[in-house]
């Protein structure tokens, strides 16, 4: 992370919640149009800088919705979202776009690479939208993620794992304050999924704050130091694990995942 991004992220930090608070959701409720119950119901949570947090929960519980709020992709029906001290509710559409460009990296389950751009071009997009040429850095990222050889390939010619790594590189190109990943292994086979998670773990060790949505408890617990469990739009559990690599069964119990079983 370069100094400027660091400074911006922490410039407006409030004193009370400690030196390293990065994300703060205050009583966030989201009701979709036509939805009877809220997708999120009064969620309050904060995420600290440098954390690797996993969000778990059954299908339809509101995990993606939560992530979208943090990314500024959607606005809460009520409540507040602040990232790096910036109140997202105060930003307009263009402001949100700029915010995402500067502070957020997003990785999707289905990669969402632009099909008519090569791997390198895909990775460069966020930098170019800012008006930066970052070809050197993009190449370095591809190298670091082990996909140097697909640089000039189009997504249709890549495997799922390669596509997802390109997507991760694209998410990292602007040195985001926060990396959001919504089921990044959901469309991958187990082995490839593990490799991708390993990469995310590595990125985290290099200092990246990560917020990860996953179904897979084993993968979550292997890398994340904190696991937030969501059900019916509410946080039902928030566990900090002293050390990663805990037995998944312990965690599952703590988080009440068995309720859904």
């Amino acid at each position, binding site marked *: 992370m370069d100094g400027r991004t660091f400074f911006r992220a922490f410039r407006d930090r409030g004193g009370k919640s400690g030196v390293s608070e990065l994300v703060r959701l205050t009583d966030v409720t989201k009701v979709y149009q036509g939805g009877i119950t809220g997708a999120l119901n009064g969620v309050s949570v904060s995420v600290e800088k440098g954390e690797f947090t996993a969000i778990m929960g059954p299908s339809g519980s509101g995990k993606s919705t939560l992530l979208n709020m943090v990314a500024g992709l959607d606005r809460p029906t009520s409540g507040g979202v602040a990232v790096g001290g910036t109140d997202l509710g105060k930003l307009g559409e263009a402001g949100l776009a700029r915010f995402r460009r500067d502070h957020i990296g997003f990785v999707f389950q289905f990669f969402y690479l632009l099909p008519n751009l090569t791997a390198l071009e895909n990775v460069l997009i966020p930098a170019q*939208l800012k008006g930066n040429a970052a070809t050197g850095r993009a190449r370095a990222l591809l190298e670091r993620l082990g996909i140097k050889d697909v640089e000039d390939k189009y997504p249709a010619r890549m495997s799922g794992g390669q596509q997802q790594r390109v997507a991760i590189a694209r998410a990292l190109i602007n040195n985001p304050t926060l990396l959001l990943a919504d089921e990044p292994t959901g469309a991958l086979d187990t082995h490839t999924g593990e490799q991708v998670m390993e990469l995310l773990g590595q990125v985290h060790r290099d200092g990246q704050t990560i917020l990860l949505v996953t179904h897979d408890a084993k993968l979550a617990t292997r890398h994340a130091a904190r696991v937030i469990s969501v059900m019916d739009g509410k946080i039902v559990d928030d566990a900090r694990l002293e050390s990663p690599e805990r037995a998944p069964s312990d965690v599952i119990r703590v988080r009440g995942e068995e309720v859904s079983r």
Partner: protein
Amino acid sequence: MKAVLLKAIRDLRRRRLQAAVVFVTTLLAVGTGTIALTLIAQTSDPYQTAFEAQKGAHLVVDFDGRVDPGTLAGTPALIGASAFAGPYRATDMQFQSGGHKYTVTAIARDNPGGDVGQLRITGGRWPSSGTEIALTRSFVDLNHVVIGDKLKVLSVPQAPVLTVVGLVVDIDELRADVGGQQHAWVIESAFAPLTTKNSTFYQMDYRFASDPTSPQMQTYLDKLRASLPPDSITSSISYIFARTVFHISTQILIGVLVAFSVFALAATAAIVANLVTGIVISAYREIGIMKAVGFTPAQVIGVFVLQILVPTAAACVIGIPAAMVLSQPLLASNSQALGLAYQATYSPGLGLLALAGALVIVTVAAVIPAFRAGRLRPAIVIANASAPRGQSGRWIRTLASLARLPRPVVLGLGDAAARPVRAILTVLAVVLGVATVIVALGETRTFNEIYSYEGHVGKVDVVVAKTPAFADADATQLIDLQPETTRVVAQANTNITAHGIADPINTLTFRGDSGALGYLLTSGRWFSGPGEVVANGGFVHDAHLNLGDTFTGTVNGAALKLRIVGVVYDFTAGPGGHIMMLDWSTVAPAVPDLSPSSYMVTLKPGSNVGAYVKRLAAAQPDLLDVQAASTGNTAFLSVIAAVLLGIAGLIALIAVAGIFNTLLLTTRERVRDTATLKTLGMSPRQVIGMVAASAGFLALLGGLVAVPAGVELYRLLFDQLSALGGNVTPPVFYDVYATWELIAIPVAGVVVAIAAAMIPARWAARTNVVEVLHSE
């Protein structure tokens, strides 16, 4: 079948905007096409009907007054005419009405009926006393004379006054608005007072059992000429020439309409093909599902084609009857010129033809891309939401990146080229639109230029017409006395006959600095002395002459040795007509009483033309007709210009619809990519920039092709037009566009395209990322 229909209608409802595009473009194309068809099918009817009903003369010949009328009575048998009328006594008569002076051919005739050349009285009655006159309807319409008006005859010293009592249609003369000298009729006993010594000539009407061809007419004239003393025939009009002249404005209109409706249909076909391709591409998964549930390939194609045919049929149902109604005034003007009560006619067969044509073209345009959907294998298409895209956008992105364009623009350019067929079809529509605008602009501009050239605009300020009763010397002295006068060119009209040309050639004889009149030469130079002649292309061609050739002309029984030194660009002689221009010194020795009929006067710069005209007219109110050199009657030109520009506007609109359509398809198809870009931080403005760049790029590409194509097409069309008057287009008429216009037109196209792009662009900018990605 029911399933196909149901699916097609449901799809149609979902694709309302696309259906609207098809509807609008088809409406415009089918409308112009139907108008063209209606005009082609029905214009010739009224003239032909009138010609038969009035027993029109195939040939009208004027004979010199010295020919013995008894001899003339024998001429019909000589040339095998089945019926004839005349010889009628006739004379050129000048009169004044409402402050203007006109010249007509007054004919002595007691009875409007007869075996040949019957006259139809469309208003009032036939003259019954010596102070009454009948005029042609064509003349009256053009010059706003009405029944009851008193005409003061100026061509005889007694200046009798005649009352207009009847309006008549004479099928055998040229219509007034295209420039023929009109006939007028008085009873036999009233004729003598309208003549001066030697001013009487004879007119004969001949009719043949069947319609003669042009060469046959030529032979008849040659026979007549051979049987009579030299110079007995002073002029002649064939029914073919009269008919052509009668139809000329409609002919030009039809030519333009046909060309443009072909353009409009081509653009529509391009848009439809593009649309179906787009729907097939974006509905890939749906096609797979349709096939999986049992649609046969033919039924899949049927679903797509039906979606297009429904709005097409709707457009036809509205457009064809509307066009038929709209073409009525154009048809009516022809009938009215003939004094026929216009019966609005609607031909259902023609409507069906237009309907079938439109449906066939649209179906073909839709079926070809729909085939692709029919052939797809379900397993492949279900796995892909939409067709895989090509990579052809890459080189453009690379180039654009090298040009350091902002990334959204680069992405937009890549999008534009990502589907080459779509890009080509869109560019094609743009090319057609921009090219027609260029052609229409060029043609209207040259029409006006030709008109002002023929009217000597900027070269002559005042035209003074003189009655034969007023002496040339007096007129010249009067004009020279005016202090503003700087230049006077006198003009006399003479008829000169030349070997190999049947009719006497209308010859303009100039006295003074005629070179300053600014006649446009397509080759050679203006004459500079006795014996030198400038003629129109039609004459040079028909007399088999080349520049520099000499030939013998006969005037007043005297042979003149003449040499062609230049070819003049001319429309006044009409299709197949002949005209010559030469200097006074060439003709004067052979015609002792040669006297100008008009004087073209140029004033000192800054002179008050109005005051000059008033003063001169007041000096000789009866014997001179003084007019400011005007741009004259351009109604005919402005109708054509309005139609041309109107249709060009419509086709340009179709092109805009094409771009709009493509952007709609692209943005719909790209909705997920756009959502992804937005998560990556693309701002709404950048999204709009991206879509606008796509539009601008396609329009620019189209413009770059269309400008040279349009200019070339304009030249081709203009050559055709020139050829109509027997001319070769002089290069000056090729350069009617300023460089900035040729730049501004495609730039305007780009601006319009970007404006049209704003709807899909803003739609894309507003898409809710969460919803788009959620529905995946």
